[in-house]
């Protein structure tokens, strides 16, 4: 298990795949790892690595059901809320143009 606490925002978000994961979960709300990997176009290992970084930062949380893990935004995280707001704003700003 990676354990990282209190990372700088540029370290956490300065990565395309991680922002893409956040985008996916912002739209879909909750998704299992395999499906996240498929939508990301990345393999399971890479996807898990990024999911764990985001989870260690408190932005995501997961729940385990049998063989699968469902990831979602951490509802208690103000960071997660601010990220979701940004993603939605970006999305709408692009739709408006």
């Amino acid at each position, binding site marked *: 298990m990676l354990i990282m606490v209190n990372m700088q925002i540029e370290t956490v978000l300065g990565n395309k795949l991680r922002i893409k994961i956040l985008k996916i979960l912002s739209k879909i*709300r909750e998704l299992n790892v395999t499906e996240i990997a498929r939508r990301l176009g990345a393999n399971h290992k890479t996807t898990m690595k990024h999911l764990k970084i985001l989870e260690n930062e408190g932005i995501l949380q997961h729940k385990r*059901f049998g063989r699968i893990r469902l990831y979602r935004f951490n509802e208690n995280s103000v960071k997660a809320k601010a990220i979701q707001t940004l993603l939605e704003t970006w999305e709408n700003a692009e739709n408006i143009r």
Partner: protein
Amino acid sequence: MVPAYRSVFKDEAKLDITYVPSRLPHREAEMRLLREFFSFMLSTPEKMAQRVLIVGDVGTGKTALSQRFGADIVQQAKQQGLNLHYIHVNCRQYRGSLFFILHHAVSVFHPNFPKRGFSAEELLNIFLQILDEQNAHVILTLDEFENLIEKEGSEPVYKLTRLQETRLNKPQRISLICILKNVKAVESLDPSTRSTLQSNIIRLEKYSKEQLVDIISDRVQLAFKPLAVSEDTISLIAELAHSEGGNARFAIELLWRAGKYADAEDLGAVTPECVRKAVSSIYAITRKSDLASLSLHEKLFLLGMARFFKENDRAYASITEVEQAYAVVCEEFGVEPHTHTQLWKYLQVLSALGIIEKSVSSTGQRGRTTLICLPGIPAHELERELAMLLEKESG
């Protein structure tokens, strides 16, 4: 289309098949009984799991009764701080498959739960895990229950009713309401499952003409502008629905359709003549089956066939011909056509419902060919019907 200000409707949605009115006239006693069966849910939900059968003919209010009851008890539970969910599943819609039914139930809590990689049994355990974690209780209603029994037999019903035996001292989580037309369907189950289910039966009788007048009047008030529907019109609809087996659903559909005729002719009121037009256009169809319950692509496929038969003065069509007609319809509605394999499945469904008939011809040069015909419904009426439904869906 007719401008809105001339429409006889105030709120068409109140006539939709999915609308559940806040009061169900002439089902007060049955509602009390249902509440009685589930009264423990608001005090000691963890102590027991209830099983109730609701039995009655088409249009006797089975679904509405159950859904009204569900919405009310969930509301009450919420006020008491109890985490109670009412989940209504139409077994036919999920092809009688326990797996799909349970996946739907899990989806209520986790909307994108994956569909692959689980057995029905694992899904049931996951469902229980979710309920345990959230300390939630569920009333699971299996509407058109016959479909589950036909498809899966005793096994899944047994699993659902004997959940607690492997859960030691854990709280009860899942109660069942099974809705079916005829209690005989349950008799095919194994004796022990049968006896568990049959203990609480609520039977819904056909509505009398007077009762239908009350039901229709209620809906007229909700859905139409004042004075748009006369007492004569209501009486005629009640009469027709009563002769149709006391079928309230038929009555409401007739009411909506009559309103549409009134709007189409810009009359400003629903006359008995509108009702007569409506009934003649849908009589056959409503008897045959409920077109509305078909999936989008089943409807599109059927629309393709209707158009084929309208345009070609023939009794039979080949698979290739209806598939081409379907592709054109998909283009019109801006959707991607489903694959050949899926269309075969839709043919089975439509055939099972008696809407189409399949026959195998061995006279062709290329061996055996499947031929399709529409036995009882005029193609132009089927087309108009489907076009109306699809418009309603997309609008």
